[in-house]
């Protein structure tokens, strides 16, 4: 196992103690919130990547003109 995993394993009992006290409904709502945030982040990343994607395909010169051409 990696060192990070072993360190996590040593710390685990301390972190795990927190899990006992939390109520199931708080856990459920936290998980829903995490899911929502994850998809908000995925939307932001997706839109950003799409907006900044290239406008001209590097291969389009060859495809359209049927001539050899170095990439732009």
């Amino acid at each position, binding site marked *: 196992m990696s060192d990070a995993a072993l360190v996590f394993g040593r710390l685990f009992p301390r972190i795990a103690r927190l899990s006992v006290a939390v109520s199931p409904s708080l856990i459920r709502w936290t998980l829903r919130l995490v899911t929502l945030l994850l998809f908000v982040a*995925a939307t932001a990343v997706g839109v950003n990547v799409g907006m900044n994607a290239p406008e001209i395909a590097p291969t389009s010169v060859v495809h359209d003109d049927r001539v050899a051409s170095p990439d732009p």
Partner: protein
Amino acid sequence: MVVLVYLGAALAVLQGFVGSGLPIQFGASLVSHITGMAAGYGAATMLILMSRAPWLERDVGAHRLARWHAWAGPLVIMLTVVHAIAAVVAWAGATSSDFVGASMGVLNVPGLLTASVGTVILVLIGFSSVRALRRRISYERWHFLHLLTYLAVGLGFAHQLAGPDLAGRRWLQIAWALLYTYAFALVLRWRVFQPLFQLWRHRLRVEQVRQEAPNVMSVLMSGQHLDELRAEPGQFFRWRFLTRETWRSAYPFSLSAPPTRNLLRITIKARGAGTRRLFAIPRGTLVFAEGPYGALTRRRRRRPRVLLIAGGVGITPMRTLFEEIDLPGKDVTLVYRASKEQDLVLKRELDEIAERSGARVVYLVGPSSDAKNDMSAHALNRIVGDLSDHDVYLCGSPRLASRVRDSLMLGGFPRHQLHEERFSF
């Protein structure tokens, strides 16, 4: 959902036609455009289907998802390879160069070197899944290779966005990017975050390892708040035991006893070096569990009677269903097939359940050539009476499962009354 998937595929292919330019010219360029779009769409769809999202696992079922994966995976790899070859041929035609020269030219295009590396990884994964090769490599190695799919798909993403079918079409690029970010978000949520959360919340640890039969043992695990997992009889988890030797691989095993608030039990048969190592897991080992998965539950039942069919260690989900299915005992029959008497795992428990509930258990032991071990639809009908009045739950080796399934289908048994789970890889 199937309609949506096909509609998306049709749109991707259509965009391949549009992207190749009008008027449409048939040739390598067109093939490259269409296969490229179809492969890109297929790769994202595969990620979503295998994301372990609960709505997919519950409503579609792990068995059907695995079947789709086994069918569509090779298709996506094939489309990717055809796309690459057709692109090089088109490039060679356009630049009047030979295949090798065109290949070098293509590799110099930004984003295409990484995409090519991704394609090579996909091809390797495809080879590792070919049946003849798959038998020769361990589950652990195959599993690791399969995880590289994420890397391969990621490496091809930049090329897809910059490809001639999407470049310059801003809304399509955004939609395509969202398809991939959502697919990866689903994977992150359900295959990474959920098991980590469950490790933290439930603190699952090995409590006891007990021998059940030669090469078969049960692992009893204790934890906190296990009722919150909402695991049902018949379901399975992917278990990763956190020891130095075993943490790398996740194994799918069904619960072999109804789950309780603080205990879970699985029963494992040693099939290779990896599963054999599990026999030596020390007490107290932390367990990283993905799940519960699988639709082989009592919720699938539609008919008034149930026939459970198990082969070998496939008895594990059937053992829990046999105890927990919500029917009077007289309407439940379990047929349990094994080669030898000592291979009948959990027999004592099955007999106890049968005695307590009034359900029937039929053991078919010995060579399959023996007429008394016949598992055809005709023979099953003889065992239970009116087979068409039953839901059939099936779990066994691929050979046994396909034999029973084929016979049932040939005998006109309704497909929707057959529920099965397979764990072969």
